[in-house]
């Protein structure tokens, strides 16, 4: 009964979405006020029905209703409740429903929080969000219905959720990521509205900024969670593999980051208007591409498109219609947008432009690398594979100047800035960074010269960035005539916090990639091995039983120069339903280093085990940095000026754009 309600709710939602899409748009074009006013209530109505569908599916998992195909293939009777509920998005159909639900959450938020917008603009934005919903609801109803039953002979128990996904990180990672992906739909809807209305100005940018920030915060957290999960769950200590699925989430992040910065320039200076619009379209387009690459298996194999041609064709047509029509609109409307504002060749505008180019080019290079197998096949270039070396090289080359410029961006003024002034401002930072970078690199006596150079470069950039950020924080919040600090706007602190986060992430990436010690060892009970100065004493293994798996747990006592450090208990689990063995690594985390132990196999003769022991310096900084970035975003979005009445802001915005104002 419950699944049927969910199914029905989806159909109702589709009907309402159609109304939400067409009626307000036609109303706005023909000046029918009653039609325009439909947008708000329709959005709320659609939200309610999608919520009913989502709850119905979760309920089917909660109640172990294995007559529902999707539940039967993604759950198991003894699966713990939290994972059973998370299994709602553990497969293609459910993930798609989560996507639609998130889209409705964002649409609802726009409805409730955009009362200040002109009614027609608001109606158009909601209508475009409704149009996106029409596409997704049709997709789920016609090709991927999660409520399909297997009757009359339904299985008594399910096939279980993939054990890799039975993990806390996986419970919260997809919702975070999807909130981020889908959040860019709001910026997209605003961009299309602006193109329809032919009006792109500072006020527009001010409306879009908090929504873009919101999406970006979620996406940042989502990408970081995914990387963290891969690190501890896959059991080999890697945190980024440049696999198509990861790239799919990283490309929208890069474009979204570029969009945040170009929005700043558009809002403050009225420049880069068309470019900002294009980025708004691109951020969402990459999200669309990303979602489907992940969930339809488009790229997990080169040919996966053909695995389910109906779904593939639907996805591609939908992408074609949404992105294609947006770009047509862009070509004809944005080209007539007036260019206003000027800036000197050396100014904040120029730095933001370079920032945007570097971020966009990175995203495009990653897209090329990801789709390369398809290019190679179509153009018959033979079997060339593009792997981690390509991505690492491209990314290092493009990110090095970016991080360097991030240090300068906040210092340099809008319009123009003197180079002498900049030299004075950054001299101390450069000296410090050179010294610290040099010392760190020289301390690594066992490293190759190229490694030393990279360590030097990494540390140089980190010190440079942190120094300049701190200096800017101090200088700008110091009052001219007293020792008291004055309070700066939240977005100012947010920006600096996010930049410090970037510095930490770079530090983690550089140091952990060059200084990690990884050993595959054979251990005997009650013997100890030494890895990178740490003694790992193996106490043996014991068997235990989990709710839906049997396991073996090893115990390692770790000490450093005789001082106790940690007890580590890595596990191997055999899941009942699938018979699949999973490795659960044990990690002792600290900001300066992670100790990581994973059980391999029991060796044939005796009680010995093959184990992998890693000591990874500063690897945690990567996720700590990402956390700071997300926190910085939260600070920025909490800035008062987004909550002030937008109208009065608009009138008073001239005195807003002093050089003290954060970007």
């Amino acid at each position, binding site marked *: 009964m419950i699944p049927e309600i969910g199914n029905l709710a989806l159909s109702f939602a589709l009907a309402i979405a159609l109304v939400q899409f067409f009626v307000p748009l036609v109303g706005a074009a023909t000046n029918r006020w009653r039609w325009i006013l439909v947008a708000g209530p329709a959005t709320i109505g659609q939200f309610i029905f999608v919520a009913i569908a989502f709850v119905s599916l979760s309920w089917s998992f909660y109640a172990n209703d294995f007559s529902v195909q999707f539940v039967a293939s993604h759950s198991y009777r003894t699966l713990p409740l939290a994972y059973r509920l998370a299994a709602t998005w553990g497969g293609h159909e459910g993930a798609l429903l989560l996507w639609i639900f998130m889209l409705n959450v964002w649409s609802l938020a726009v409805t409730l929080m955009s009362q200040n917008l002109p009614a027609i603009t608001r109606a158009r934005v909601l209508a475009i969000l409704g149009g996106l919903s029409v596409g997704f609801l049709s997709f789920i109803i016609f090709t991927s219905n999660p409520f399909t039953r297997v009757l009359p002979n339904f299985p008594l128990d399910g096939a279980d959720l*993939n054990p*890799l996904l039975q993990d806390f990180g996986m419970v919260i990672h997809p919702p975070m990521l999807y909130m981020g992906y889908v959040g860019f739909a709001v910026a997209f809807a605003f961009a299309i509205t602006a193109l329809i209305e032919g009006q792109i100005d500072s006020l527009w940018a001010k409306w879009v900024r908090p929504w873009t920030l919101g999406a970006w915060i979620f996406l940042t957290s989502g990408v970081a969670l995914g990387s963290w999960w891969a690190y501890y769950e896959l*059991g*080999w200590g890697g945190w980024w*593999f440049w*696999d*198509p*699925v990861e790239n799919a989430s990283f490309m929208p992040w890069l474009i979204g980051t570029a969009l945040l910065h170009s929005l700043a320039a558009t809002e403050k200076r009225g420049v880069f208007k*068309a470019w900002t619009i*294009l980025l708004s*379209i*691109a951020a969402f*387009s990459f999200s669309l591409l990303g979602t489907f690459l992940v969930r339809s*298996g488009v790229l*997990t*194999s*080169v*040919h*996966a*498109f*053909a*695995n389910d*041609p109906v779904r*593939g*064709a639907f996805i*591609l047509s939908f*992408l*074609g219609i949404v*992105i*294609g029509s947006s*770009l*047509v609109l*862009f*070509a*004809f409307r*944005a*080209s*007539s947008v007036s260019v206003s504002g000027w800036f000197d060749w050396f100014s904040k505008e120029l730095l933001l432009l370079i920032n945007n180019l570097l971020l966009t080019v990175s995203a495009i290079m990653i897209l090329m690398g990801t*789709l390369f*197998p*398809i*290019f190679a*096949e*179509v153009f018959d270039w033979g*079997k060339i*594979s593009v*792997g981690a070396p390509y991505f690492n090289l491209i990314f290092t080359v493009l990110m090095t100047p970016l991080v360097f410029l991030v240090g300068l961006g906040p210092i340099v003024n809008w319009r123009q800035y003197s180079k002498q002034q900049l030299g004075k401002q950054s001299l101390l930072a450069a000296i410090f960074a050179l010294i610290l970078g040099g010392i760190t690199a020289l301390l690594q006596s066992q490293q190759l010269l190229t490694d030393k150079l990279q360590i030097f470069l990494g540390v140089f950039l980190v010190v440079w960035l942190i120094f300049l950020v701190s200096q800017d924080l101090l200088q700008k919040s110091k009052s001219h005539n007293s020792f008291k600090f004055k309070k700066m706007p939240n977005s100012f602190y947010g920006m600096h916090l996010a930049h410090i986060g970037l510095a930490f992430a770079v530090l983690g990436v550089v140091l952990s990639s060059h200084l990690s010690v990884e050993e*595959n060892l054979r251990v005997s009970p009650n013997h100890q091995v030494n890895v990178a100065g740490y003694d790992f004493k193996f106490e043996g293994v014991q068997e235990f039983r989990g709710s839906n798996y049997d396991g073996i747990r090893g115990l390692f006592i770790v000490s450093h120069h005789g001082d106790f450090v940690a007890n580590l208990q890595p596990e191997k689990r055999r899941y009942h339903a*699938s*018979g*699949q*063995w999973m*490795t659960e690594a044990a990690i002792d985390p600290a900001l300066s280093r992670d100790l990581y132990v994973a059980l*391999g*196999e029991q060796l044939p003769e005796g009680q010995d085990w*093959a184990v*992998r022991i890693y000591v990874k310096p500063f690897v945690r900084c990567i996720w700590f940095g990402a956390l700071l970035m997300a926190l910085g975003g939260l600070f920025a979005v909490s800035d008062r000026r987004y909550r002030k009445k937008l109208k009065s802001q608009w009138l008073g915005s001239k005195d807003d754009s002093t050089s003290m104002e954060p970007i």
Partner: protein
Amino acid sequence: MVQSKRLVLYLLPLTLFVGLTLLLYSELGQDPTLLESQLIGQKIPEFSKPLLMKPDVIITDKDIHGPALLNVWASWCPSCYHEHPFLMKLSAIQGVQIYGINYKDQRADALKYIQDQGNPYQGIIVDENGRLGIDLGVYGAPETFVIDKDNKIVYRHVGVVTEGVWESILKPKLLPAEVTK
């Protein structure tokens, strides 16, 4: 004049997108099962390659005894991780032999993979340079070939082998006798 120049510039994103879509569409139109169909009905190509678990032992095409599945995998292939549990299940079924072809992989990574995920294979052929893969017409991993008792290729499956693929396509081709029962 200036106006039209700008329009050309602003049409650029659209042009790129249309190109990309056409490219993806051409991929979509292809039925991978039809590709390389000239291999169907032929014997598996000659090769002599080391075994993964015993690198000093050489395995040749004469050592392969069908009917069997030839599964192309690699540790760098995410879909292989997805496919592996089902291969483990399959290998437990009476009469199902699976040979692995470890395609363009690093030995240490491949061993780690087998250590972690289990070994469903009768033997794992190391195809480090991808030569055997080229002879077989392999594009990527995973791919699975069905060979009959004379070592002739009966079928080529591109992508992940799932319960559904096995029951509806591979099983009837690998074990034709059982289907008629």
